[in-house]
């Protein structure tokens, strides 16, 4: 009996260690019953950045819709290569090219993200008006992403270590209806509901409530609250499951953010996605960026 308890303790310890440590790249992780909020959120971040795949390429569009319904549009082509490389500390590299409208066509960004979460990203921009590369500092995490309703950290920079987590409950999600897509998402999907509190003082939100799909460990919906406890932002992340070599990859394909204060909405739709295409790392270099034509 004593031996069994010790064995069990050892297994729990090993399991805890696995999730306390960084999850291994190119694996598929799913939440399990009894996991802590931290363990669930680690899987959530792993999936958010698609670290299960070696590379991902998307084409898509972003729509910015003001209260009156007036809509602006941006189209992009994006690529990511996941490296998780300890030798130079690089986690992954992203390339985003604006393909429309013409005024921003050709604008291109190359971003390198490091394993060390305290290290900022390195960012290079190709500026068509200069036909030249400019290295720039990482955007502030609370800045808006592409001028929309998502913050930069909502999309690119928020990491597991930026918040503390509390598992509030488990429930079936009530569903989210997108006015833009005229569709209801995730109705009755079993979820963990986690409260995420930023570690930074005086941050632009006081807490987030995050709904995590129990089956795939992805964040399907979240709400942001201010210091008065008032909800000011909702964010839906629609996923599709891609089967690659027998593995199930949950990919974010549709995002809708609503600013409840201004009535402004941002929608990002990934129209196409390709995984594990053998994208070469030399496509993610300053040299490659300087070969832009537009």
């Amino acid at each position, binding site marked *: 009996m004593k031996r069994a308890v010790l064995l069990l303790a050892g297994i729990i310890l090993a399991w805890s260690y696995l999730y306390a440590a960084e999850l291994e790249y190119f694996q598929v992780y799913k939440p399990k019953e009894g996991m802590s909020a931290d363990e669930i959120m680690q899987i959530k971040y792993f999936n958010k950045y698609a670290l299960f795949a070696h590379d991902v390429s998307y084409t898509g569009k972003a729509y910015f819709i003001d209260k009156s319904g007036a809509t602006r549009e941006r189209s992009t082509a994006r690529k990511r290569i996941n490296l998780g490389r300890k030798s130079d500390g690089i986690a992954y590299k992203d390339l985003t090219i604006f393909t429309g409208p013409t005024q921003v066509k050709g604008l291109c960004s190359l971003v390198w993200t490091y394993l060390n979460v305290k290290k900022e990203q390195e960012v290079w921009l190709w500026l068509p008006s*200069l036909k030249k590369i400019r*290295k720039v500092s990482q955007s502030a995490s609370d800045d808006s992403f592409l*001028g929309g309703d998502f913050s930069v950290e909502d999309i690119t920079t928020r990491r597991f270590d930026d918040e503390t987590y509390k598992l509030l409950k488990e429930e079936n999600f009530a569903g989210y209806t997108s006015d833009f897509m005229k569709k209801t998402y995730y109705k009755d999907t079993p979820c963990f509901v986690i409260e995420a509190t930023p570690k930074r003082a005086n941050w632009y939100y006081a807490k987030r409530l995050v709904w995590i799909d129990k089956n795939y460990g992805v964040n399907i919906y979240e709400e942001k609250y201010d210091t008065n406890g008032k909800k000011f932002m909702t964010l839906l992340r629609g996923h599709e499951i891609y089967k690659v070599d027998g593995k199930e990859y949950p990919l974010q394909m549709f995002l809708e953010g609503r600013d409840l204060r201004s009535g*402004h909405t941002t929608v990002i739709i990934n129209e196409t996605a390709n995984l594990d295409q053998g994208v070469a790392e030399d496509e993610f270099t300053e040299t490659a960026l300087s070969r832009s034509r537009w």
Partner: protein
Amino acid sequence: MLKRFLLILMILVFSGSLAFAELSKGDLTIAGYLKDEFSLGLKTFNEVTKFKNILQLSGEYKFSDQSVFFASAKYWYDAIYGLNSKYDAARHYMDHIQRTDWLRDCYLDYTNGSWFLRLGKQQVAWGQADGIAILDRVNPVDLTEYWLPDAVDLRIPLWMANINYSPKLNSNLQLLIIPDFEQSTAAPPGAPFAFRSYKKFMDFKERWESSGWYTGYPPPSLRGDVNVNIYYPAKQFENSKIGVQWQDRISDWDYTLNYLYGYDYLARTYSERPDAIPPLDANYGRRFKLDQMAGGSLNHTFTEEGLLKGITLRSDAAVYLNEPTYYGDPATGASVGVKRWNNIFWLIGIDRNVTTTWLASFQFAQYIMEHKSPGVGNYQTLNSYTYGAQDAVENIFSLKISTKFMHERLKPEVLWSWTDDNQGRISPKATYEINDNLWFTLGAHYFYGKEVDSNGQFRDVSQFYTQIKYTF
């Protein structure tokens, strides 16, 4: 010869691509814009100085993953030169696009493993500096509107072979062979941004060819014409400009090493032997000289925890070997000779997000002459734009603050560039996105300083401007 060779090579690669690519899978992209640029004198508020309409069309055809053809053409017409007789003297040059300048890009990209070729008419930008050409001297520049347009419109594209080899990740060796030659251009007298030096020369020409009596000039009856002989480099392979850039990364620092050899795009005007028998022509020559540039650039973002975190550092440095350097008497505004000096130009730039949405970008540059004085009589070195006195060490500063509002629909910015001679330019502007395809810009350029300063020479042509751009 080499230019012809390049053209033939491009056609061969182009036709080869056509033969092997499956055209049905080809990918054609076309985009363009119509733009109106309007400016109004800041001093009088009633003098329109520009009413320019521009059409640009660009197209890309992807034959395969390896080869892509890209071309862009631009046409513009500035109506103000037909509307206001004040600008008649400059009209022939300034009211429409000149010669083959309409073809902005025409090249074929070919990628194969570590090799990348770009063959055709193109522009190549070197260096990290913003608005100050330290290493960015591969292409000549069109200064008909001073340094105000975007860099992409300032550079004059040239036919060249741009050959690249990447021996390892993040590194690149670039070789440029440029058989094409164009001189850098300036606005002619009569145009708002004509350089003072150019205007002074034309004043002299007018006096010389007139029937007036002037101190130091022969009597009018003996004077003939003012002739300017321009000696372009002969179109030979040996006269090609050669550029080499090595790009690499050490730790988190990106750097380049650059070298450029060939004919300078600026030719200094010098006095040739005068006629001995009346009518006495005043003969001048403009000869493009061979010179070299060696330098490098550096950039780095401080990403680690610490005081400097979030700061991006940029730097360029170059030495111009045998750079033609004017000297003369600034009081008379005339150059009497040219020295060939090894001058140095370097810059450091710092960029930082000051708050979430405010970005500050500061640059400090120094142009250092090899000698303080030309050592000829009491003559001083001259600023080639104005024929004013040139400091042995010129300190140049710029500060740009930019931000964004209304979900990035409204983007205001202000650029202040100045030197230690209390002269400079302040250029605020705001761009507003009316919809996806329609953009409006409102701005101003305010010049200050003495008439003999680079910016001060335009203190009377400070302006408000608007731009409306429709893209498709």
